[in-house]
């Protein structure tokens, strides 16, 4: 079971109140987590990754286990604590005014 947290705007868009739990078979990577997240909440397609390129949007960051994973390759394995559900995969909007 993978735990994911969303910023407030995206929680509202997905109509969820708190943390999201996803069941993912196989490798746990940014790509498999985001694929599963968008599969369950299709209204989030395009809000975290660009629709066409699948690249992370510039003002969205990924954190887990105290590390900034924003610039890690999308197919790199996420930390074991994410795969085990001990820690949440955090999707965060960059602090940039607004």
């Amino acid at each position: 079971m993978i735990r994911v947290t969303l910023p407030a705007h995206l929680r509202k868009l997905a109509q969820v109140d708190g943390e999201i739990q996803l069941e993912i078979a196989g490798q746990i990577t940014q790509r498999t987590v985001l694929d599963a997240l968008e599969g369950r909440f299709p209204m989030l397609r395009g809000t975290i990754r660009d629709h066409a390129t699948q690249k992370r949007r510039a003002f969205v960051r990924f954190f887990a286990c105290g590390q900034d994973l924003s610039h890690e390759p999308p197919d790199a394995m996420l930390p074991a604590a994410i795969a085990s559900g001990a820690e949440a995969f955090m999707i965060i909007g960059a602090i940039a005014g607004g």
Partner: protein
Amino acid sequence: MSGVRVLVGTRKGAFILSSDGTRKNWDISGPHFAGWEIYHLKGSSVDPNRIYASQSSSWFGQIIQRSDDGGKTWHQPGTPAGEPTTAPDGSPKGESNNFAYDTSAETGKQLTTHQWYDGTPHPWEFKRVWHLEPSLSDPDVVYAGVEDAALFRTSDGGTSWQELAGLRGHGTGAQWQPGAGGLCLHTIILDPRNPERIYIAISAAGAFRTDDAGKTWQPINRGLHSQYIPNPTAEIGHCVHHVAMHRARPGVLFMQKHWDVMRSDNGGDSWHEISNNLPSDFGFVIDVHAHEPDTLYVVPIKSDSEHFPPDGKLRVFRSRNGGNEWEALTHGLPQSNCYVNVLRDAMAVDSLDKCGVYFGTTGGQVYGSADAGDSWQPIVRDLPAVVSVEVQTLR
């Protein structure tokens, strides 16, 4: 009982202002989509309960929202809450957020570059929808003007969008350059007498027209004169801020350019200046009276660097003779210490008798006039900065 519904897009959400035909007492609903930039909302003239909204943010991109009940409830088209996440054919939902430039061999155009502010080539990148224009005959058909400049169309109520790539790829695209607000397609005008004819305008490329429903396009900028570009009379490169047309006279167009208020009597083939006695011919909005095709409205702004009204006086200027002469409308508007702006899509008219005129400011006020501009009242004073104002006349 007739009434009006004013659709207001702001930097931090959407608001809907409703009144009966007297336009004296107003109900305010919102913020809808609180915290998001709402560049534009517009209702279908065929089905007034159908309203489309462009919701976006620099963080999370573009969302299209749709209401089928006059703005009471909203959903992303094709992705209703609680329904399965794939369509019956197995394709994923969420496509209403997807504005992909068409580069296919069959219908698309190569994704080349446009000019950046410094003149260097810059790749085309989708950023947001600036303007939504519902079809005059089908509530499921809508055109979307986007940044970086291109025109999209949906025929399934906003569930999916396809680019009309003939515009972006018609030949001059490599010379288009962003204005201060970005390389945005902000104006879409559908000809009520000829469904094949569409006018659009782009900052800073100019105005364009199609006569074959979007397959091919031509620039329509002859007569425009822009001192701020290397060739002031170039075919493209003009910073057109907004264009307006009266439904009963679709060949006559009125334009507020970066500087200059312009008129065309031949569908944009040529333009001539009608700024005349305006205190400044810089501005963003321009609109036409619902029943008088030669009655125009603009809000002069001091200059391209000082985006506020001249002398701190918020004045709408009206011409009753197609732009030959302008009169200041001030009754009910602040006439001292006013330094707000009125952005390009932030003025609209209703079609009641007398014609109602509405505009919103970057200071968060929405002003309305129920007597064609003779007098004004603030409908609401303290919204976030207003980006767009549209009106639905309900009968």
